[in-house]
């Protein structure tokens, strides 16, 4: 009977340990997911802001962008001639 009791205590201890260990890992994972969600929200805000900045800068600098493209094209054309 005592051997049986010891066996039960062992099994019960093992199962208890396994359960609490997994529970703690799961809690840690949930915390990490919360952090990721929070970071994702922040990064979404940042992305939106950056997109707005890019749009605004692009429209402000559209002439410069065109000029840059034109110079690139002209330079390439001249380099072709010089080859």
């Amino acid at each position, binding site marked *: *009977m*005592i051997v*049986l*009791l010891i066996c*039960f*205590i062992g*099994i*019960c201890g093992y*199962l*208890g340990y*396994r*359960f609490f260990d*997994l*529970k703690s*890992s*799961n809690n840690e*994972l*949930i915390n*990490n*997911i919360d952090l*990721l*969600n929070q*970071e*994702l929200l922040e*990064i*979404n805000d*940042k*992305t939106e802001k*950056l*997109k707005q*900045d*890019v749009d605004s*800068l*692009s429209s402000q*600098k559209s*002439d*410069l*962008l*065109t*000029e*840059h493209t*034109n*110079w*690139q094209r*002209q*330079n390439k*054309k*001249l*380099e072709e*001639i*010089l080859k």
Partner: protein
Amino acid sequence: MAKTKQEVRRDSKITSSIIIATLCVLLCGISIFFNYAYKKINTEYKDNQNKYATLSTELSDKRNNVQTLEKEIDDLNNIENRIEEIKEAYFKNAVKAEELVRSGKADFKICYLTFDDGPYSKTTPGFLDVLEEYDVQATFFCLAKEGVDDIYKREKMNCHTIGNHTASHAISYIYSNIDLFINDLLENRKFIEDLLGIKTDVMRFPGGSPQVSYSGLNSAAMVERLREIGYGYIDWTLTTGDGGGPTYLTPEQFMHNVTDYSSEFDVISVLMHDYSTNTLICLPDMIEELTAQGYIFLPLSYDAPIVRK
């Protein structure tokens, strides 16, 4: 009646067995509970692991997006520097091209188309359209004019060189002494720099460089002053004749004034005025004819060998 020792031991065994059995049952129940709870939480844990992996991937993508956007913003902020870099490379190549032509090692010729006295709100856009259509770059020797900002900007945007032709072009006034001339030139440099953010370094004298000595000024001293303030100057090889020649000339004759003589040269600068509608009419044919003669068209730069310093 008192229990015998044997009876006491038996009772004690029974009691112990009952306690142990009860404990075993209890532990069995607890084990079953732990096992059930483990299975439940394990399912949840696996779901969370998947969720975590999905979020991590999403976050990584978003971080890449942010990096791309930040780079795009940096690029936009640095665009003026990048334009300067590419212009520098372009004009180095242009100088190399002219040197090759002058040394007889090139299978092409070079034409610098130049337009004086603009911009003009009515005619200059037409010239810019033609140049754009033929993908040809030229040099505009501009005055300081109000109300035509868009045209100056378009000239710059389309990779034409903006040269300095003095602010006023008031020949009798600016040629009265060298200081007046230089002040007028610097006034125009500031006007263009304020408007376009570029510092002009190539100029053409109103009436051409001989006008300096015609006006009784010392040409060498004038050139020295130009050198001091960082200007090179250029006259012209050929002209359509639109700047005060016979008024009866047709656009065809304007063109022939250039194309009939251009084959004699390897490097030419052509003087035109962007107020002349006849020049505008003949410009496409002139470009085609000069191209057929082997000319390529370049905008001027300070370092171009044709520019005198």
